[in-house]
């Protein structure tokens, strides 16, 4: 491991049990210095518990957590080199913005003149310069969150923990804050660890994402790897929208593979999957990677044939559902077998949505490198 990718947080075989409930189950992962790490998972998966254990508000039942090489066992939250931005922001309502941001520095015994400078700097950083005298109840939710951010950043922590930082904001503001948080992280160079259940948020902000399911790490990967190369059905389904078909692996060679999916047909891949022959596997196919055609054009067949043998990666069906979303249109297509496939189609011209309507017969094809074979 190189110096630049030194882990700032090491989580080693950490479990947390509340009575009989196991919230975190033997999790090990390293978070590198300077990265924007996101813990992604459905509610109740244990991601917040993990974050709270890093902050020191929960103690691991088993395992240990190291921050910058130092074991955190027995070190209370107020002595850890991390700071947290809470889901409710937890801005002190009886203190002005300045007093809120200065609080940690005052506790730490920093000199008055230095406090003033650092508070001003932190407020500028979160674009709240000039708001110092405001009281929290005179601010919007977004502004209060900035106060919470400044209050943590002013401490110059080694790691900044953010618990669902954008969940309370409306959609527009959330999109804006996603950019701002990434920008801020790059500017200050502090390691950010964020917890979220929102995949868009995770994909747009993270350097790396740890997907958590039922207290375990389901996959650890960069956003694009997570989306394009999910390692299991949970991740494929949780991150983005996906079609999952069950099938049997009938061909598996270094440069090609085939899966026979009952009700769908044969699916051909232009790479090997190294799975046991004849094993039950699952195919994950993203809706945007399926091309839709009016039947009889012959185009679909030809397109499919270009990189897959005849009869592969091709299906016919009827449009059973459509939802027009502006930038894309989602289709639900029923095959003759009764199986349904979700397809999304970008509206590249202003009349694209008029091409298809309910009960139209359509054919589909997808490229041989689009399906992902999942073994679990």
């Amino acid at each position, binding site marked *: 491991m190189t110096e630049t990718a030194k882990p700032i947080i090491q989580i080693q075989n950490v479990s947390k049990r509340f009575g009989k409930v196991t919230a975190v189950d033997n999790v090990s992962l390293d978070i590198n210095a300077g990265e924007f790490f996101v813990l992604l998972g459905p509610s109740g998966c244990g991601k917040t518990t993990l974050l709270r254990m890093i902050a020191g508000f929960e103690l691991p039942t088993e395992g240990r957590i190291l921050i910058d090489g130092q074991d955190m066992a027995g070190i209370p939250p107020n002595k850890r080199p991390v700071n947290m931005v809470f889901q*409710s922001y937890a801005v002190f309502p009886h203190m002005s913005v300045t007093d809120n941001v200065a609080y940690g520095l005052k506790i730490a015994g920093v000199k008055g003149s230095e406090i003033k400078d650092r508070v001003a700097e932190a407020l500028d950083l979160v674009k709240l310069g000039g708001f110092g005298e405001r009281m929290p109840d005179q601010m919007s939710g977004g502004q209060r969150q900035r106060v919470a951010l400044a209050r943590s950043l002013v401490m110059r922590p080694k790691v900044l923990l953010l618990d669902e930082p954008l969940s309370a904001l409306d959609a527009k503001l959330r999109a804006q804050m996603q950019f701002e948080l990434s920008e801020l992280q790059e500017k200050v160079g502090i390691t950010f660890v964020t917890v979220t259940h929102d995949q868009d948020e995770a994909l747009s902000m993270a350097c790396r994402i740890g997907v958590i399911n039922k207290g375990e790490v389901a996959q650890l990967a960069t956003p694009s790897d997570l989306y394009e190369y999910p390692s299991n059905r949970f991740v494929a389904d949780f991150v983005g929208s996906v079609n999952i078909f069950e099938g049997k692996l009938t061909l598996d060679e270094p440069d090609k593979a085939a899966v026979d999916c009952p009700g769908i047909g044969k699916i051909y891949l232009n790479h090997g999957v190294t799975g046991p022959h004849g094993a039950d596997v699952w195919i994950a196919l993203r809706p945007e990677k399926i091309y839709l055609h009016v039947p009889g054009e012959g185009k679909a067949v030809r397109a499919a044939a270009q990189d897959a043998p005849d009869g592969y990666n091709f299906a016919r069906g009827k449009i059973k559902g459509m939802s027009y979303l502006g930038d894309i249109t989602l289709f639900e297509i029923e095959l003759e077998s009764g199986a349904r496939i979700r397809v999304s189609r970008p509206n590249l011209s202003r009349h694209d949505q008029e091409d298809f309507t309910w009960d139209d017969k359509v054919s589909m094809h997808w490229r041989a490198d689009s399906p992902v074979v999942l073994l679990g």
Partner: protein
Amino acid sequence: MALFTRTPVAPLEYSRTLWMRLWVGAVMVFLYAPLVVLMIFSFNDSKRNVVWRGFTTKYYEKALGNDQLVEALINSLTIAALATLASLVLGTLAAVLLWRFRFPWKGAIDGTISLPIIVPEICLGVAFLMFFAAVGWPTDLVWPFNLGAITIAHITFCFPFVTMVVRSRLASFNREQEEAAKDLGASEGQVFRDVLIPHIKPALVAGALLAFTLSLDDFVITYFTSGPDTITFPVKVYSMVRFSVTPEVNAASTLLIILTVILTFIALKAQGVKAIAETH
């Protein structure tokens, strides 16, 4: 002009319906008429306080010149101040303890802490009388130590009120604020001082007001616990009234009412009425 351009009464605008106004009016009259009468008759130029015989302030002079009455008032105010202070500390600690921690017998303690509110005052009075007699509480101490027995009794029935008010305020406390403070480096003590106390401040003001007024006007328990030299204001007034209701009593009572109103006003002003309303 605006008088004639009234908008129609909206469905939920009860305060503008006639019957509601009558009702509120009646409540106000029943509540305040006796007080107003008491105040008016404190200026009555008559020994017997039944018929109006002209305006005078001589009974105020007389009341303020009555050494026993003034002494009783000073006693009452001292007891009330001490009892309020002790109740605030004790009541707040009890509230925080019950809110924050889990410990054996918590349910039982939670249930019995408000017992002094429920138990009839006369029973408490008798209980205190017997208790202080049994432990041989000295009655010949110098002022203000001779007020000890009464003060202790007052603390006993005042602090549960503080606990109640503070607890209801604590229920609205966002625990993440406590964690945020700790996260920023604060110790338990600093969290208490910087985050918890500011949050419950309106409840502390409300609780203090409650304790102060409860202590100031308590008669029954005080009557049982007061020694020969420790007369409080309500007890003194009672003994004066036993002979006749003179305007002197009215004057003293009026002064007390004004004092209480001023105190309440100051407390509300200092705290903001809204903050106190929030606690209930």
